[in-house]
Structures are given as structure tokens and as C-alpha cells.
């Protein structure tokens, strides 16, 4: 129906432009929320305007009282969000999709049987259930093939010749003969603990208690695997379909329940004081995940007092790093990691202590000997007078101040590709200020090489 026609029928109809990107985002958010049923959850991709989610519920259904009860729960929870959902469960995603879309029983959740019974059930559905572009389904209907069962009676070689191999594959998927991989919205998390709450949590205090309980259970779980976590993620599933995420980090992997509780509570407090923690109508599911786990080696209780003191001080430092990470945010407490890269600004990387231990933190001695202690984020252009063709600068002007060079060491040539090659000089001005300058473009290749300041305290 055209918009004009619709307006003629219902004059005060509400009109909004279609927004495929926004719908896709909403669907992804819904998929995250649907992770309450299974961690393997993904929006159905590939076909415009398909609003569907795939969930791999292998090993999950019994937690909700069986497949039928789980599907019913999904339909009810979705209805509470104001969504009209149809749910079906079958051996393959393709069959489940076809049934959810076109089987009438899917309104209340349909748990389909396997094998021949499934093929019979799917066979009665129209060809649109195959999840194919509209051109293909129109073509099939033009040939008089209206249901999946009718298409399946044709020889697959003939179908492939006429409509392409995609049709044959879709047919196998819908009839439960071929598996299909789904691409989950969130990475698979090795360890998780969930607390299902009878009453939604509305207060920060309640949240802290629930977080503490979940952290305690997580530590017990990690203990049974002899593992420790460097990072715990607290997911708060709100009743209205929004998931809030808080991340607590630690400088080393551990499973100390008291410390983790403290970190998560600090995170909740920081969030509540900062941007504000909007709990909406309450949180009915609290989940604690450990995305990064490490096997914990046993620690020797050292009886030597010096070694024991060193252990205690390392422990104090870790606790400090954890506290600061919790208070300021994980990315603000870092260590330096050396990267084997010849471009100076890329030779150092900051690694959050909660992420991992820096792999290399020593720089080659010969390289370090020529580097400044402070590096500008972006080299700043200067006006310099230098010996031609390739001598060090003698006078330069930076930030409206003139400097006279008294000592210079260099050049150290760093190749950055033809016109961008740099000749670095450590220089000291007549007042004793030390800078790290470079000339961009090699003499002879570039007519007027440019000069830059890249660091100080060289």
C-alpha cells in the first residue's frame, strides 16, 4: 500500500522513515540481552529486513526446564519488552528459522522433532521459508513449486543448474540435513557465573551484594580449575532489555574473592558517581564473566626474610594497581611494552596492567642511548638553519623562541620511505636545553628538507 492510500484510510497514522542501520543496532542489542539464554547468540545476517536471532542452545535447555519451557520463557520475556516473538527450536538453524517464521505453533514456541518427522514438518512450509532472495522464490513459484516439500522432490542437480547452488544448500539447511555456523555477538567466555533474581534489583546496595555473591562463586569456580582471572566483567541484565557492563581489572591473575568483591564494588561506585548507573526498572540477572583466565602456579612461601619482603612489596604494588585501575578505569594504569619497530613513536606501547604482562620491556641498549626522555605526540615543525648539505642545525626557532645549538650528535638515519626519511640529531642549546630534532627528507633527494622537534630532555 502506498503512504497516500494508508493516510486516506487512517488520517492520523504515525509515519517514520525506515532506518536499517538503527534496526541492526537494536537487533544486536537484543542479541546481547538474549545471551541470558545461551552465550552463542547472533542476529540472522544476509537477508535485508530479516529480524531474527539464532541461539545455539546446546546444553542450555535443561537449565530452563527443557526446550519447550525455554521457548515459552523466550516468548513471554519478549512480549514483556513489547515484541511479538515467534520461537522454534530444531536440529539446524535453517530448520528453526523456517519453522519460527511460518509454522503456526511457533507463536507459543515450537520444539520440533528430528529426522523424518522434521522433514515432514518443514516440507509443508512455503518456499519463502528457505531464506533466499525474493528473485529465487518468485522463480520457484512460477514453476509451480510452492512448498519446500515440492522443491525437495526435484533433483538437486537440476535445481542447482536452474537457480544456483545456494538453493540446494538452503534446502538442505531447512530440512535439517546441513549444519550452519553462527557468529556470536560476544566472544566466548571461558568462565561465567549467573545469579537469577526473583525480584529485580533497584538499589546500588543490592547490586553490590549481588556482585559480591557472584564474585565469590566465580572465585570458587576458578579455584576448582586452578585458575585466576585478570579481569572480571559484571553484566547487569535489566528487565527492559538493556545490558549494562562494568569491567574490573587486576594487575595479576588471582582468585581472591575479597579483592574481587572490592574491585567490583569500587567499579559500581565509580560508575554511580560518574556517569550515573541507570538501573531502569531493575536488574533481574547478574552475571560475572572471566574473559581472561590464567593457570595459577603454586607460590612458594619463602622463609628467607629478604625474599619474603620482596614478595610482600610486590603484593602491595599489585593491590595498589588494582585499586587505581578500579577507581580510574582499566586503561589508565599501564606499563610500557617495547615493540621492535624502527619508527620511534611506534617503539613503545602502553599495556593496561589488567590486560596482560608486557611481553618485552627492555629496549636495545644501543637504541636507548640516543633517545629522549620525553617524546612529543606529534613532531612539531621548526625553522632551522643548518649546514648544507647534511650537517646538524645551528640555529632554530620553535614556539616563537630562538635557540642556538652548542652541541650536537648525529645523524641517526631512520627510513620511513623515500621523502619521509629522517635524520635525527640530539642537540643541546647554548642554555643547556636538550632536544631531539630531525630533518625530514634526505639531502639530494629533497630540495628543501623540513626540520622538526620530536622530543626533549634528550
Amino acid at each position, binding site marked *: 500500500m502506498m503512504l497516500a492510500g494508508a493516510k486516506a484510510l487512517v488520517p492520523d497514522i504515525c509515519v517514520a522513515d525506515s532506518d536499517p542501520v538503527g534496526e541492526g543496532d537494536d537487533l544486536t542489542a537484543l542479541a546481547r540481552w538474549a545471551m541470558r539464554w545461551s552465550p552463542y547468540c547472533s542476529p540472522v545476517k544476509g537477508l535485508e529486513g530479516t529480524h531474527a536471532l539464532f541461539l545455539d542452545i546446546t546444553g542450555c535447555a535443561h537449565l530452563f526446564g527443557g526446550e519447550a519451557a525455554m521457548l515459552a520463557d523466550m516468548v513471554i520475556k519478549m512480549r514483556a519488552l513489547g515484541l511479538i516473538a515467534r520461537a522454534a527450536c530444531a536440529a539446524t538453524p535453517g530448520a528453526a528459522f523456517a519453522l519460527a517464521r511460518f509454522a503456526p505453533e511457533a507463536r507459543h514456541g515450537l520444539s520440533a522433532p528430528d529426522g523424518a518427522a522434521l522433514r515432514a514438518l518443514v516440507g509443508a512450509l512455503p518456499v519463502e521459508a528457505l531464506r533466499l532472495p525474493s528473485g529465487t522464490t518468485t522463480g520457484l513459484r512460477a514453476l509451480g513449486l510452492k512448498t519446500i516439500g515440492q522443491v525437495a522432490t526435484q533433483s538437486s542437480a537440476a535445481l542447482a543448474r536452474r537457480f544456483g547452488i545456494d538453493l540446494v544448500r538452503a534446502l538442505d539447511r531447512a530440512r535439517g540435513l546441513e549444519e550452519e555456523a553462527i557468529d556470536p555477538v560476544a566472544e566466548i567466555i571461558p568462565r561465567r557465573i549467573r545469579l537469577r533474581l526473583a525480584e529485580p534489583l533497584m538499589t546500588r546496595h543490592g547490586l553490590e551484594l549481588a556482585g559480591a555473591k557472584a564474585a565469590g562463586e566465580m572465585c570458587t569456580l576458578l579455584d576448582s580449575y586452578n585458575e585466576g582471572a585478570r579481569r572480571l566483567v559484571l553484566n547487569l541484565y535489566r528487565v527492559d532489555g538493556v545490558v549494562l557492563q562494568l569491567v574490573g581489572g587486576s594487575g595479576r591473575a588471582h582468585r581472591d574473592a575479597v579483592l574481587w568483591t572490592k574491585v567490583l564494588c569500587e567499579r559500581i561506585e565509580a560508575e554511580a558517581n560518574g556517569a550515573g548507573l541507570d538501573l531502569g526498572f531493575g536488574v533481574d540477572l547478574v552475571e560475572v564473566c572471566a574473559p581472561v583466565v590464567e593457570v595459577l602456579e603454586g607460590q612458594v612461601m619463602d622463609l628467607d626474610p629478604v625474599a619474603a619482603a620482596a614478595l610482600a612489596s610486590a603484593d602491595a*604494588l599489585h593491590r595498589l594497581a588494582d585499586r587505581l585501575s578500579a*577507581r580510574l578505569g582499566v586503561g589508565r594504569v599501564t606499563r610500557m611494552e617495547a615493540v621492535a619497530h624502527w619508527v620511534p613513536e611506534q617503539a613503545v606501547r602502553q599495556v593496561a596492567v589488567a590486560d596482560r604482562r608486557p611481553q618485552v620491556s627492555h629496549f636495545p641498549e644501543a637504541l636507548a642511548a640516543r633517545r629522549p*626522555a*620525553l617524546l612529543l605526540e606529534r613532531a612539531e615543525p621548526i625553522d632551522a638553519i643548518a649546514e648544507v648539505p647534511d650537517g646538524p642545525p645551528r640555529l632554530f626557532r620553535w614556539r616563537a623562541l630562538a635557540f642556538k645549538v652548542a652541541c650536537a650528535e648525529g645523524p641517526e638515519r631512520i627510513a620511513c620511505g623515500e621523502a619521509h626519511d629522517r635524520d635525527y640529531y640530539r642537540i643541546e642549546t647554548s642554555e643547556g636545553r636538550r632536544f631531539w630534532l630531525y630533518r625530514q627528507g634526505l639531502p639530494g633527494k629533497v630540495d628543501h628538507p623540513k626540520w622538526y622537534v620530536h622530543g626533549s630532555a634528550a
Partner: protein
Amino acid sequence: MRPDLTALRTQIRAIETEGRPTLSCLPTGADRLDAALGGGLALGGVTEVVPAAFMDEPASLHFAFACLAKALHQRSGDLVVIEDASRGQGWGPAWGQLYGPGLQKLGVCPSRILLVRAPDVKGFHACVEDAARTFGLAGILALSGPKAGFSLAGARRVQLAAEQAHSLVLAVQGLRTSAFAPARARLVIASRPCRPVPLGTALPGLGPPAWRLHLERARNGARPQSFDLEYDDATHSLYQPATLANRSPQPQRLSA
């Protein structure tokens, strides 16, 4: 208290510290400066490092790291560097960020640095206090921006925390940062031309880094005085160059 009990306590303490006297100062290596400071940089106290001019801000940081290299060499534990990043990334957008290789050259091992960037002034003060209260750190370096000066009460809290945990705190201030009142000493750092190394080229090479330190104020009552210092990165110590060599270099004429 019975005298034999006191003797026993002394004996136990001697065993615990393995005969080392408990350090209350960290000698910098420059004898006259150490004498003026009452033995060296205060352990269990805050030492303020201030640039003499805006362009000396990198020099003051350079000097602070030279002192901390000594601390890392002599004390166990890590170095915690706390930056006031309320003006964007890093301590001074004017000077950029700390660069690992350059610090390693000074003798500060980058793997022993924990970098903390506080997003606001309040958070910065809380972090410095928290770090100062932590036992077993080799040193704490607080880099304050111009607006991140401590209030009287806040500074006092940091000082008390440092005394309690016996920690070495260097507060490197920007030129316009308000003074850290209860600091054990206030050192004003200015750049000073180094003793150049003749290389046979048109310009001589760079000698060891050199500073002029003005001891503006010290809790032990030392009178204000200036020192010329250099840094030896092989022994991680500051020293006063020999007097004869302590002349400023002759002004050089630029060759045409």
C-alpha cells in the same frame, strides 16, 4: 623496661636489618648537596622539584628521573609515576609523554615503572596519597600540571602517608603549580650547558647531562644555596664536576 630486654630488641633489629642502618635518606651521590639536605633525598617525605623557567620543565623531569634511577638501584620495588592528565594526554601536552628508551638510558628500567594517568585533579591527589601510603615501592613520582597543586591539608596528608610508609615521593611541579608546603626540600632546577665532548666535527658532542640546582628551602634549616650537578648513568649517581672543569663553555662562533 629491663635492660636485657632492650638489648635483646636491639639484637633482633640488627638481625632483621642484616646490620644495615635503617635508611632515612637516599644519598644522591653529590656530597655537598647530600650534606645540605641532611644526608640525601628524604625517605618518608616529599621532595619538591620545580623548574626555574618554563623551558626548564623537561630538565626538572630529567633530574627527577636521575634521582629515581638511584632509588631504583638501591631499593627494591617498583616506581609509580602518577601524571595529572586533566589537560588531555600526559603531564604536559607541551612536552609530550614519557618515553621508555630515554628513561632506560638514564638507568630507570622501564619494566619497573607503573604509569598512572589520573583524569582529574581530585583523582590525581587521591592516587598520590594512596601510592605514598603503599609499603615497598622504590619511589613515587607525582607530575602535577599547573592547576594540580595540592591544598595545604592534602599536601599534609600525602606527607604523613609518606612518613608512615617510608616512601620516597618526588613531586615534580609545573612552573605555575602552587608550592607543596610540607615538602622536606624544594629544589629549583635550571638547565646548564654540559661539558662538550670533542668529536672532531664542526659541533662538539653532548657530555653528561648537567643542571644547576638551587636549594630554595629545606626542612633541616640549610641555607639556600646553588649546586652545579652532572649525572653519570653508569653508576646512577649525581656528582659535582671538578671545579676546574666547572667553567661555562666559551661562547662559540658560528662558522659562516
